[in-house]
Structures are given as C-alpha cells and as structure tokens.
C-alpha cells in the first residue's frame, strides 16, 4: 500500500503544473474558446513537446506511461488549469484504440499522435444519450472497401482533427455490443462537419458520414471492437474524473481566497461561521473526490466487473461532488461568481459539463447497482 507518486510521475506533475501555470491565463482561455480552432494550438504543441501525450501511452506502444495513475496525474493538472485541449479524444480514445486494436500497421500513426497529430473520436450518436453500445451508423463492405453512413454527435475537437476513429455497425442491432467495428476515416469529403462552441470551452461537431474508405481502414476485428471501446471509455472517464478533481481544487482555491479577501458587514466574509462550515463540508467532499479518482485510477486495468464498478462509483461521486462544488462556490462568491469575466465562471461551467459526459451521476448509480448485483 503506497499513495506516493513515483518519482517520474511526480516530475511530470511538477513540470506540467509549472508549464500550465506559466502559459494559461483567463484571457488566453477566452481567446481559445472563441477561436475557430476551439483550443490553443500553442498549448497543444507545448504539451506534445513536454511528452504529455506520450504519458498516456504504455511503453510498448511508444509512450512512457499509460497506467491509470499517469492519466490521473496529467488530467488533474489539465483540470487545475481549466484548459480544453484534445488530449482525451486523441490520446486516450482514438489514439488508445488505434494502439490497442491497430497493431503494427498503426504504430506510425500512434507515434504521430504522441507527436501532436489530432484524431477525433466519432462514436456517440444523437439518440444514444449515455449508452456506449448505442451505434446506428452502418459500415458495409463493398468492392472499394467500406461504405460508412450515419450521424455522429458531439464529436469534440472535430474541426481540428485530421482524421477520425469512427465506430460503425457491421452487424447486430442498434443497442447490441456485438457487431461494432472501428474505422479510421480521414477528414474531408464525405465527412460533413457542423461545428459549434461548447458550454465550458472548446468546440464539438455533429458529423454526418457518407464516405467510402479502403478495406484497411478497419481497425481491429470486424464486429468485435466493443470491449476495447469500453476499456478506452473507462480510461477516458478516469481522465475526466481527474480533470474534475483539478477543477475542484482550483475552484476551492479561488473560493477560499475570496472568503479571505472579500469584506461585508465590516469583516471578511470568511469570518462568518456559517460559511466556514460549508466550506469545510466542501473540502470534505473534494477529499472524497480525490479518493474516488485514486480508486478508479488504480482499477482501470482490472477485470471488467471490477473496473466498470469503479468507473460507475467514481463517476457517480464526482457528479455529486461536482454539483455541490459548483453551486456552493457560486453561492459563496455571490454575484461576481456568476460573471463570465471572473475566473470562476469558466471553471464552474466546465465542472458542470463533466456530468454530461460519459454518463451522469444517476446513470452511473443505476449501472453500479447492476454491476454489483452481477
């Protein structure tokens, strides 16, 4: 039993934290959010150069990390800084699946990803809500390769992706786990993108596919990609939860500072006991969130039931703690906490949106019960 970071991870954490503290400012985030790219190209380049993308991949895939705690270390810092780079989409989802399912044939592409190439993950669909196995998009073999038709929804960072890891059904019914395949589809003709900004920063797109790709665009076994998708989603959820934790830490810092500095009725509002106690309760919940992230990070490579039980437990707790932190931090700030200009605004929106990705607290509570009964 050991809760210390390894020396390597400690170094990664320190340097990443320093880099982001130096590079990120509210103005810079505001600019990135309104830019056409929907993220900061400078920052992305910087992260790639620091090896942050490589930290998401195991050594045998050309990276130097890839364990749960590598994800949690990186994404806690991402959250702390409030940035919205395509790290999870490219490094964990599309990249992770390419590395796992693609074999030697995709090794170069994984290397490119580690170097900063952006690949989108076009999986979820308009009617799927949070059901990972809900895939209607079809892929049919024809003489030219695969013809893929369908609609993908909320494909984050789609506008800057050079290609997409697209999931499509080569068999089975809409909500079956069997019959889902993965394809690598280049951006461009046949891949229609309607992109838009997101609450909490960054951009995503509705993607309409009507495209033919060569036979070797199939990544992994035909109809058998689901297990790998679920594993990748578990890892992405771990990253997202760690990001939420980082957001909470920064929000906590802003709120405590505010309580210390802001005066009302003749004294700093942090001297009001009712607020002190609520702040203490918030801290207790953030500590719970930290432990929940540790639990998930320590089990992303466990057997399926154990892993997914932790996915759902942690995502549920993060969802609840997140809402508390959002609402209490705004309330303790008062009006200023609701303004777009003040640093809190961006962070609370981002933290709120965590509950709308990969399943909300209730979705995972129900799933936890189901997995526990099994």
């Amino acid at each position, binding site marked *: 039993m050991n809760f210390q970071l390894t020396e390597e991870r400690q170094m990664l954490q320190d340097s990443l934290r320093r880099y982001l503290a130096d590079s990120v400012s509210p103005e810079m985030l505001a600019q990135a959010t309104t830019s056409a790219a929907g993220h900061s190209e400078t920052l992305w380049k910087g992260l790639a150069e620091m090896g942050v993308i490589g930290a998401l991949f195991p050594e045998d895939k050309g990276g130097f990390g890839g364990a749960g705690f590598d994800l949690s270390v990186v994404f806690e810092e991402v959250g702390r800084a409030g940035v919205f780079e395509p790290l999870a989409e490219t490094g964990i989802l599309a990249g992770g699946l390419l590395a796992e399912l693609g074999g030697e044939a995709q090794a170069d592409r994984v290397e490119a990803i580690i170097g900063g190439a952006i690949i989108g993950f076009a999986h979820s669909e308009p009617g799927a809500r949070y059901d990972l196995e809900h895939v209607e998009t079809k892929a049919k073999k024809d003489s030219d390769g695969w013809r893929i038709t369908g609609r993908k929804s*909320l494909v984050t960072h789609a506008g800057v992706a050079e290609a997409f890891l697209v999931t499509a059904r080569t068999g089975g019914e809409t909500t079956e786990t069997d019959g889902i395949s993965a394809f690598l589809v280049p951006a461009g003709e046949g891949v229609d993108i309607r992109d838009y900004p997101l609450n909490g920063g960054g951009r995503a797109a509705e993607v309409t596919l009507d495209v033919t790709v060569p036979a070797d665009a199939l990544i992994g076994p035909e109809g058998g990609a689901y297990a790998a998708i679920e594993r990748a989603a578990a890892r992405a959820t771990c990253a997202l939860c760690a990001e939420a934790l980082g957001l909470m830490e920064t929000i906590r810092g802003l709120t405590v500072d505010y309580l210390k500095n802001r005066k009302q009725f003749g004294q700093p509002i942090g001297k009001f006991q009712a607020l002190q106690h609520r702040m203490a309760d918030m801290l207790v919940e953030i500590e719970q969130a930290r432990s929940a992230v540790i639990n998930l990070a320590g089990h992303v490579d466990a057997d399926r039931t154990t892993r997914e039980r932790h996915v759902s437990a942690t995502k549920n707790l993060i969802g609840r703690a997140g*809402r508390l932190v959002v609402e209490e931090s705004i309330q303790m700030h008062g*009006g200023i906490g*609701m*303004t*777009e200009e003040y640093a809190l605004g961006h962070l609370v929106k981002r933290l*709120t949106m965590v509950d709308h*990705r990969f399943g*909300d607290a209730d979705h995972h509570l129900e799933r936890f019960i189901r997995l526990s009964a099994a």
Partner: protein
Amino acid sequence: MDLTYTDEQKAFRDEVRAFLDDKLPKRQRDKVAGGKRLTKADYEEWHAILNERGWLGVTWPAEFGGTGWDAVQRHIFEEETTRAHAPRIVPFGLNMLGPVLMKFGSKAQQDHYLPRILNGDDWWCQGYSEPGAGSDLASVKTTAVREGDHYIVNGQKTWTTLGQYADKIFCLVRTSKEGKPQQGISFLLIDMDSPGVEVRPIVLIDGEAEVNEVWLSDVKVPVENLVGEENKGWTYAKYLLTHERTNIAGVGFAQAGLENLKRIAGLEKAGGRPLIENPFFAAKMAQVEIDLMAMATTNLRTIAAAAAGQAPGAESSMLKIKGTVIRQEINALTRQAVGPFAMPFVSEALDEGSNVEPVGPDYALPATQAYFNNRKLSIYGGSNEVQRQIISKTILEL
C-alpha cells in the same frame, strides 16, 4: 379553513384566462415557453397590451391608475400569466419605483412619473447594488453633493438588470457621511441620457448580458429629482425591498418549470425508455413536486394574511429560501434531463428569426442557461444567507 377560491375569485381567474387566450400574442407565448431571447420591443408590446386593459399596474391602487387588486387577485393574475407563458412584467418602474413614489414622492413626481411608467414612456432600472457590497446595501459609496439646484453624482452601480434598455435609473446615493451608514442615504432619480452616465454590460455564465454596470461621473441631477427627504433614503429603500418581496416564492415560475421538466422528461429517452419512467429520475421529480405543493400552500397562507391586512414578516424569508431551492432544483433536473445536449452553446438559435438551428433538441440550451442563470435566485434580493439571518433574528430571536 378553505383551500379553494371563492366564486368571485374563480370568476376573476376565468376573466384573466379569457384575456390571456385572447390578447397574449402566440409569438410571445412561444418565445417564453421555448426559452427564446426576449427583446425590449417584446416587453413593451406586452406592457402596452396590459395597460390597454388597465392591468399593468398590478400592485397599484386604482387612484394611480392601477388595478386595485387584493393580494389574492394579484396571486391569481401572477399564476395565470406565468402558466400562459406571458413575458414577465418588468418590475423596476412598476413594482419598485411606483410604490415608492406613491408613498414618499411629491405630488409633482407622482403626476409626472406614474403615468409615464404605465404608458411605457420611461423604462426604469435600479441603482442599488455597488461593487463589493452585495447584500450589504447600507454601505452605499456613490456620492451626491449638492451644488446649487443640482446634485453632482459620482460612483458606480452594478447588477443593474436590463439597464441597457433604460431611460432612467433610481439610485441610492450617499448625501452624508455622518451617523450610521444607513443614515446618510438619499433616493435619487437620474436620467440615463445625462452626461457622465455610462452603461457597461456584464456577461453572465449563461452567456447573456442582462445585467450591467452603471458608471456615474460628475452627473448633474436637478434637486427636484430627490424623492422624499435628503438622508432618509434608507427608509424608502427598505420599503421598496418589501414590495420586491411579493411573489418572492416564485410559485408560478416553479410550476411552469416543473411542467417544462415533465415534458422534456417525457421526450428524452434513457436506456430506451422515456426518462420520466426512470425510477431515480421520477423520484427526484416527485420529491420536488411534493415540496412545491407544500410551498404553494405556504405562499397562499402568506397571501391570505396579506389580503387580510397583515404585514408580511419573516415568512417572506422562508418563502425566499424554499422558493429558490425548489426552482433551482427544477433547473438542475431539467439540465440533467437534456443529457449530453447540455453541452452545445449555440446562442444564435435563441434569437427570433435566426436561421441557426439548435444542436439537439431546442429545449436543451435554454435548460442549461436557466440552470446557470438561476443560481442568482439564491444570491439576489437578499441572499439566502441573509434570509437565514433574518429568520434567526426575528422569528427565533437567537
């Protein structure tokens, strides 16, 4: 004890319903129900419709051109207009300044301003809050120095709702630094066109700019624009706040919000079933509905007491707390209900006549915006913390 309306009250309700069926433009109804953005013209149109019927001065006595309704009638009107998705009545002239002028204004001020409010000639906004003061209203820093027959006003006001549309602002200003902070405050009416008045929008986390900062730099204000006596403004301000607190529970808004939530939960599918049939979600919805049923009765009890001539006391603090908790919970559930489509922020889709389509269902962005925007409910009008303090002091005597 009788929980039902009298026959007269029922007849009145039917009259209001008939009026709304007849006169509330469908365009406006759809915009409000759909969470679309309302323009200044929208509000003005609705005010004019109400004024034509003599129903704009809801809280005003008949002698000033108001309805002369009692508290129950006002409640029925409020309930019906909210349910019918009418735009709200912009309260600054009608529910805030109006009553202050009627009680403390000069005859000349009443004769000049009150008809202009009803006719829509003036759009008023409120200059109470200042940066760094929040719920601590008595710490007013904006100064008004008398020079001949003018005051020279300097300072800054904030959280001025819809100030961008306003022709006039009523302000708390400091005219004396002696005594307690409450003692040197005066109540001043200022023309927004005066040189030195500058309005800057504040964008909130829902992406909208409904509030503003108002900067006042050497603004010349004629002394006849002083309401009541100099340095007595705190009395008027408190009177205004009591009036602001009618309908503090927001029962009508909560009921409309709950209906909207149920509609959305019936349309959204989770795991192949309508979300409304998911037991976890249904439990949360039922819980808040049950709370609302009780709160609506607390509200009616307070209204009945007011109609019987009792002054509203700390009950309004209880209604404020529970009312905001319930509305915010409904907002949170609605945001939860829309699922992943809470994420897209396609602001243009909310403009009437915009040809930008929303991403996902059209109710998604309004749901997210309402969640973020209504965090204000527990902050403004005396934060819920201030309300707890009032309860503790006046009811519990702790």
